[in-house]
């Protein structure tokens, strides 16, 4: 079954077939304007998320165990023959940022940039969006590097178009990221997403520096002017109407326009039918 009309959305909302999150996060400070920053380990509602498993085990945010804790999760509806959809996203922040909500799929911890060479970062199987189309690979800083700015690239990954054994483009971290800062890894020419990652190469080492590798699917990005609410209707305004799968683990990341840590509040609403 799926939602087939706007009236059906109204009826479903009015009947309580909903799943809404009024979230907030107390963020940490980013390196600089322009950089993306994760709220995964920041306190708030939901509470902070756990560190993912290391290479070889990793973490699949598939709803089993406690892995999804820290994400915005939803009651299962597929077993009742329903689909769930995102219908509106509203937020405010104490700093001007671009706020993104994404589905956190898998993650592997322990990428260190203190030495050059191939680093095993094997990811587990995608729990959703299994074709890999649109799935992005990001690093999430857990220990800030010092010294030289690291340069890395995807040394071996499976692409949604090109298949196994792909090599991605080079990523200069652009400075010395702070804990929570995120950077997206370039793909090989022709690829449109990532199914799995095997290794990442550190081309230029820094001193210290550790990162999680996160595979994710973007849901929505919204610009926020400091203290002023902004909102997007995902039905009538941008007609995205994204399906939110049963085991989804929605999380927040934001692009900085300065170096001050924002506090973020907002609402993500869903309907199912």
């Amino acid at each position, binding site marked *: 079954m799926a939602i087939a009309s706007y009236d059906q959305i*109204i009826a479903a909302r009015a009947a309580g077939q909903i799943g809404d999150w009024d979230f907030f996060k107390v963020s940490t400070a980013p390196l600089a304007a322009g950089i993306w920053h994760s709220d995964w380990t920041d306190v708030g*509602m939901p509470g902070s998320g756990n560190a993912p498993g290391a290479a070889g085990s990793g973490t699949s945010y598939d709803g089993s165990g406690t892995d999804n804790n820290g994400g915005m999760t939803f009651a299962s509806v597929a077993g009742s023959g329903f689909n769930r959809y995102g219908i509106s996203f509203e937020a405010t922040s104490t700093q001007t940022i671009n706020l993104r909500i994404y589905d956190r799929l898998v993650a592997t911890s322990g990428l260190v940039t203190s030495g050059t060479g191939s680093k095993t970062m094997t990811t587990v199987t995608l729990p959703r969006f299994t074709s890999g189309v649109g799935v992005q690979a990001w690093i999430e800083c857990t220990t800030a590097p010092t010294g030289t700015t690291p340069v890395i690239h995807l040394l071996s990954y499976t692409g949604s178009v090109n298949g196994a054994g792909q090599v991605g483009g080079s990523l200069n971290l652009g400075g010395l990221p702070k804990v929570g800062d995120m950077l997206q890894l370039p793909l090989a020419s022709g690829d449109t997403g990532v199914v799995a990652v095997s290794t990442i190469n550190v081309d230029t080492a820094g001193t210290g520096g550790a990162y999680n590798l996160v595979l994710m699917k973007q849901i929505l990005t919204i610009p926020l002017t400091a203290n002023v609410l902004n909102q997007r209707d995902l039905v009538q305004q941008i007609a995205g109407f994204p399906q939110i799968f049963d085991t989804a683990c929605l999380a927040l990341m934001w692009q900085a326009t300065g170096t001050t840590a924002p506090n973020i509040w*907002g609402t993500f609403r869903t309907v199912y039918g």
Partner: protein
Amino acid sequence: MSGISSLADLQNQISANGYEDIAVGYKALITSASFFQSTWPSTGSPAAGGVPATTPGTAYTSPVVGAIANPTNAGGFPNVSTKKRYLSSLSIEYNIGVVGGTIILVDRLVAVSGIALTSAATVTVNTAALPRYTSGTGIQAWLEITTALSVAAPAVNLQSYTDDVGNSGISGSAMVAATATLAAGSLIGPLPLHGGGNSGGIVSVQTIAISNPATTGIANLVLLKPIANISLPAEGWVERDQVDQSTNLPQIFDGACLHFLVLGPSGATPIQYQLRTVYK
């Protein structure tokens, strides 16, 4: 009743049955550049809400002074019993003309007064049972300042609370007051939930912990449920249709005690508001 079934059905409840209640009013604000304030203690229409009881506090069920109401039913919207009431639109006017902000319409559920923020201590609150949203899902805990802070910005955390998935005796991380001089009416919060947990709300709070105490400062602990959000214009009138503009259509339960949380105005000019509700 299953509630509103379509946009035409909603329109029909208003045009054919007259099942609509509208609340209009205004509330004074304080300047709050980068932190939230509560309109509960603000003067205006409705009048300022009262100070809640000390532990276990006050569980709010309208009619109660301070709750947003329609003109014919002071203290809240009239009960609709077996029918269901929904928020259909929310409109705000503001004319400071400098900087805009954010407004959150909330249902005030439980509050406990007399929490001193002037010593590093664990404070027992033992909040009363939630009168609505009893599962606790989506319920947030805020501190509402009743005596202004001075000298230091205290940090407050949930020391022991019960969440919406059955965990009790769990704690959350601290939230620090935005400034050391928060005025009465300002808010600290929401207080963060337990890290690594799978909950999305609060059923009750047993104790909170205070560190880095202020020299002066007293607060209410308030459990509330956000209902709808709207941007606050720098100058002018803004409206948000809750049906086809934000696809929300939140239910307003009988006994709801509605007021606003406001972030960001750079002046103390009052806001004017209009809430439209429809029921079936």
